Structure formats: structure tokens, C-alpha cells
């Protein structure tokens, strides 16, 4: 059982490119083919993983491990999914010392860095828009989400010049949770 968990999630860790959203289909395959969770349960767990702190993959895999084999299962599954990226980064860092200065690597990085910046910016824009446009309305705006977005964005923009210190992401998360509870609870 432990070996199966370990090998199953080791494979996920090795092939999951581009973060959690790339990993979810892989995790689905492994989990469903072993019959570890039902389809419905897995979908629910993805929602829980998105709303609990930490990397989504770690949340998801910890849950599958613990549901199958208790605490030790959770440790096994989590270690399996983390190990590949840990080892790969160490390898890359050892190799990269010289490699990073190579002219062709520099040339590739000159294209890669702005490309990643563009992808991340687009992801942010998309997420903000997704929340503000109501799911059934198409072009209708979700008033509470728009209000929250405006308040939080205002806080981020104003805190720099006024407080001489940009609001930290942690502050912003805490404030947003309180505001969310207040606005959506009302």
C-alpha cells in the first residue's frame, strides 16, 4: 500500500509541469485508476485544496494518503510528490552555476522572463475578471465581488504612499477573509 502510494505520486511529482492545474489531471488518473477516491469525492477535495493554505498538490495528496493509510500514508504520499521537484532544483542549481552564464542560456532567458511575466499578468487579470463577472449573467457584474475587488485594490494602491510601506500579502489575505465573511454573510 505505502509503496503504491509512493510510486503513484512520485510519477505525479515527476510529470506535473506548470503547477497545480497541470497536476490535477495526473492526480485524477492515479487516484481513480487505483480506486483510492470516487470521482465525486475527488472533485470536492480539489475545492477544499484550493481553499486551504499551501500548495494545492500537497493538500490533495496529503488527503489521499491519509484516507488510504492514515498518518504514515499521508507522509508517504506527500514525500513522493515533493521529492522530484526538490531533487530537480538541486540538480539544476549545481549544473546551472556555469550554465546560467552561457550565452545561449542567457538568450533563452531573455525571452523566457518576459514570457512568464506576461502569463502571470494574464492569469491575474483573468482571475479578477472571473470573480467580478457573475457566472450566469455573462456580462453582468457581481456587485459584492466588484466592491471587494475595489476595496482591496485600493488598499494595495494606497498603502504604499500613505503608510510608506506596501501592505504585505499576508495582511491582504487576512483583511480579505474578514471582508469576505462580512460582505457575503450580510
Amino acid at each position: 500500500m505505502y509503496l503504491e502510494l509512493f510510486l503513484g505520486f512520485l510519477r505525479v511529482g515527476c510529470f506535473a509541469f506548470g503547477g497545480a492545474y497541470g497536476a490535477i489531471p495526473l492526480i485524477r488518473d492515479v487516484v481513480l485508476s487505483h480506486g483510492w477516491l470516487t470521482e465525486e469525492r475527488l472533485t470536492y477535495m480539489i475545492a477544499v485544496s484550493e481553499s486551504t493554505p499551501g500548495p494545492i498538490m500537497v493538500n490533495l495528496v496529503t488527503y489521499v494518503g491519509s484516507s488510504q493509510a492514515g498518518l504514515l500514508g499521508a507522509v508517504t504520499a506527500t514525500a513522493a510528490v515533493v521529492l522530484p521537484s526538490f531533487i530537480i532544483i538541486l540538480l539544476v542549481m549545481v549544473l546551472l552555476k556555469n550554465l546560467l552564464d552561457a550565452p545561449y542560456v542567457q538568450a533563452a532567458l531573455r525571452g523566457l522572463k518576459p514570457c512568464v511575466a506576461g502569463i502571470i499578468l494574464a492569469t491575474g487579470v483573468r482571475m479578477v475578471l472571473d470573480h467580478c463577472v457573475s457566472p450566469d449573467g455573462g456580462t453582468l457584474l457581481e456587485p459584492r465581488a466588484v466592491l471587494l475587488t475595489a476595496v482591496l485594490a485600493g488598499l494595495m494602491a494606497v498603502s504604499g504612499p500613505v503608510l510608506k510601506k506596501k501592505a504585505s500579502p499576508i495582511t491582504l489575505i487576512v483583511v480579505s477573509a474578514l471582508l469576505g465573511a462580512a460582505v457575503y454573510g450580510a
Partner: protein
Amino acid sequence: MNILADLFLTFSKIGLFTFGGGYAMISMIENICVEQKRWITHDEMMTVTVIAESTPGPIAINCATFVGRRQAGFPGAVAATVGIVVPAFAVICILSAFLDHVLEISLIANGFQGIKIAVGLLILDAGLTMVKKMKAKAFPRVIAAASFTATLLAAVFHWKLASVDLMLLAAAVSLAVSAAGGTLKRKGGA
């Protein structure tokens, strides 16, 4: 404070306050590791992000391992990586006892609605910072604008477009442009 303890605690804090996956974590790491602790520079952060995006596994793990090793070698890498995993692990282990109903508690569900919005804004902010700190030249601007547009269009029209594909394309274009411009011969800074 002992550097290993500092790495462990700092990354635990990052892990505890990161919702919604890797991109959200980038603004947190930028804020703490670049601006507050000055463990790495913004340019290094950009390089880690690129490496993290092009290697498998959770982006957060890649970043933690990188910063940890940079600060304190292999033990540092272990301390930072374990640090970022522990909160996620602990929260799920504790929750798994009564996980079935946790999202049905309306106070928690409403709080998460708010957090989701903050996460979107944090990612937007991370993207803006990256674009602002880019070299003010035509080439990076064109690449960033192209990948921005492609990612948004893919989302709107539900294309299957992996960011890895975009990155491969950008690397290829950049290599071709550099080769054509003859900059491959001399050492150039990105």
C-alpha cells in the same frame, strides 16, 4: 536567529498564508524573500520562476528549495522545503477528521470568497511588478505582450494552451533573434 530555523519559519509562514497555488505564492515570496529578507534579488526571483515553471512539481517547492539552498546549502534546502510543506500537511491532517462539512460552514465559505479575490489581485500585482521591472526595450515588451494576449485568448476561447508551450516558443524566438543579431557571441545580460 539560526539561519535554518529562520528559513523553516519563514517558509512555514509563506505556506500558511498562500491560497490558490503557485502564482499566488510568487507575490508572497517576492515580498518576504526579496524585499524584507533580501535573501535573493528580483532578477534571481525571475530566474527561479522561469525554472520553476519549466520543471515539474509544485512551483512553491521549487522556489523554497532554491532559496533554501542559496542561503544555507543542502540543509537550508531541506529546512525551507519542509517548512513550506508542513502547514498544508498539518491543515489537511487536522481537517480530514471533519472535512466533509468544512466548506458548508457559511462563515468559512464566505471568508474564502474574500480570499479568492485577494489571490487574484496578488497574482495581478506579481505580474505588474515583473512587467515594470523588465528592461525597457522593445523585445521583452513584445514577448510579454504576446504571451499576455495568448494566455487571455486561450482562457476566453477555452483553447488547450499550456504555458510550457508558450515558454518553449519564447525561448526559441529569443534564441533566433539573438543568433540573427549576433549577440550570442558576446556575453549579454538579460
